[in-house]
């Protein structure tokens, strides 16, 4: 659902005043966090969507990596997962089996357990998970802690929405599809682990609202502005060319129209380059705000853990006129 519609619906929900609810609806974070005891907090999230790739097994992996990511983005460790699946009666049931097998494999890789689930008959397949994780309440990393002077690190390149659109159009170069699938099935577990080592101040995972959509949530929750340097933002192969061809999903434009007034772009940046920054990501990377002096350490640790594509893409500034600024 687009951010504008969602905001309108969520506004009508009552906000909980329970002090144990450490993270709830009001900061638009990745998952809810509930303090059970002084040294134990529960992180709870749910995410599911329609297939982004043809292979059901790969789709299962992607959907699970995407759902687990919300727990990782809060600095937590996944514990239990429940399958959520919608499936049409006209498709062979083996397809559903493959989806669930892919999901189970990712959950196992994350060290968590699939404890059950729920399946509904529907016209179009959908799959995802509700995931519960644990963390020490003091180790929770929300999207609200970014401080002026912090640097912003993105752990996966952008472009999965555009590449998936190109795959549908049969216009995606093979290396682009390969890289996108590899990245969408990759867990954010290691990135989450090393950002805690580096004492990250804030974190969010980049998913449906695109880089700038989730960055705006981070800026707004932290009362700061974020500045991005376009040329440093890592992109998947072929993304610039595919965007220039107009292979841009509708979600990108919804995200842009919702945010446009809060983003100030250098006027030299062409529309297709802007679009990439609004592109909805599936199982995207973590956007981490970390103290300037810790950024090199974090990049080095990310590279050691196999996340060599992570880059410093901007910095946190005092709250200015625009929530977000994009420079060339």
């Amino acid at each position, binding site marked *: 659902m687009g951010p504008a519609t969602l905001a309108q619906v969520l506004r009508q929900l009552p906000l909980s005043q329970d002090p144990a609810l450490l993270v709830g609806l009001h900061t638009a974070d990745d998952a809810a966090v509930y303090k059970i005891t002084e040294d134990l907090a529960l992180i709870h999230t749910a995410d599911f969507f329609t297939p982004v790739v043809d292979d059901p097994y790969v789709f299962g992996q992607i959907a699970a990596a995407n759902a687990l990511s919300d727990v990782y983005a809060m600095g937590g460790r996944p514990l239990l997962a429940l399958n959520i699946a919608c499936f049409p009666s006209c498709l062979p049931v083996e397809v559903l089996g493959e989806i669930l097998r892919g999901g189970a494999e990712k959950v196992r890789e994350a060290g968590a357990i699939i404890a059950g689930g729920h399946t509904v008959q529907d016209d179009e397949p959908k799959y995802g998970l509700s995931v519960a994780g644990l963390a020490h309440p003091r180790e929770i990393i929300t999207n609200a802690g970014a401080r002026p002077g912090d640097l912003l690190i993105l752990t996966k390149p952008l472009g999965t929405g555009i590449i998936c*659109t*190109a795959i*549908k*159009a049969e*216009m*995606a*170069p*093979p*290396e682009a599809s390969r890289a996108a699938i590899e990245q969408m099935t990759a867990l954010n577990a290691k990135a989450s682990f090393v950002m805690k080592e580096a004492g990250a101040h804030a974190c969010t995972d980049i998913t449906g609202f695109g880089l700038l959509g989730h960055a705006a949530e981070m800026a707004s929750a932290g009362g700061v502005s974020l500045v991005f340097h*376009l*040329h440093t933002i890592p992109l998947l192969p*072929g993304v*610039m*060319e595919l*965007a*220039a*061809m*107009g*292979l*841009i*999903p*509708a979600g990108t*434009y919804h995200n842009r129209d919702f945010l446009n007034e809060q983003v100030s772009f250098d006027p*030299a940046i*062409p*529309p*297709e*380059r802007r*679009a990439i920054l609004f592109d909805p990501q599936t199982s995207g990377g973590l956007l981490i705000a970390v103290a300037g002096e810790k950024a090199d350490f974090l990049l080095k640790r990310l590279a050691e853990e196999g996340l060599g594509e992570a880059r410093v893409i901007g910095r946190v500034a005092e709250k200015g006129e625009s929530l977000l600024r994009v420079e*060339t």
Partner: protein
Amino acid sequence: MSQAPRELNCKGLACPQPVLETKKALDELPAEAELTVLVDNPVAKENVTLFATNAGHRVEATENNGEFILRITKGRAGLIQERKGGPQPQDKPDENPPARGRTTYLITSNLFGQGSPDLGQVLMKSLFVSLAGQEVPPAALIFINTGVYLSTEGSPVLEQLQKMSAGGTTVLSCGTCLDYYKLKEKLAAGRVSNMYEILERLNGAEKVITIA
């Protein structure tokens, strides 16, 4: 002789269909021809405009009750141009769009025709000598499969290839094929390409001849 402007109705189509339909229609039209595209949602309007503008065509958009009429005039360059982030780099001769009337050759084998391999090699050499001697050089030579044996070290037609390359012919070799035959290190003319670019070239070409 002027052609009647063509009209393409993309109403009711979801992304990326309108872009693909527009691209297909433009590919079949000569330069300077006009194409009117009707779409009924802003996403399709933006994507078709983005595609057409970046492909070197001119676009004029008008809105009417939530529907959009896009008047596209096909540019001379039927190809997606390199995207320019900042200042426009000087065009390399390689990136020039093929001039009108020039032919693109898709070469899928190192031997010309079925039959005796020796004869096939002689015929291929003869073809390249003739090609290199033409007044108007080919727009592009694209080598795929065993064709890449012609663009790499040890090729019997290297001299002709290098001459055409220097004369403005784009010489592309399929990267997957070079990898497959372990020839990537031995490329001796032109540059490595991929199926995506090759397809773009073929779609954008005025005329394609396949040598198999």
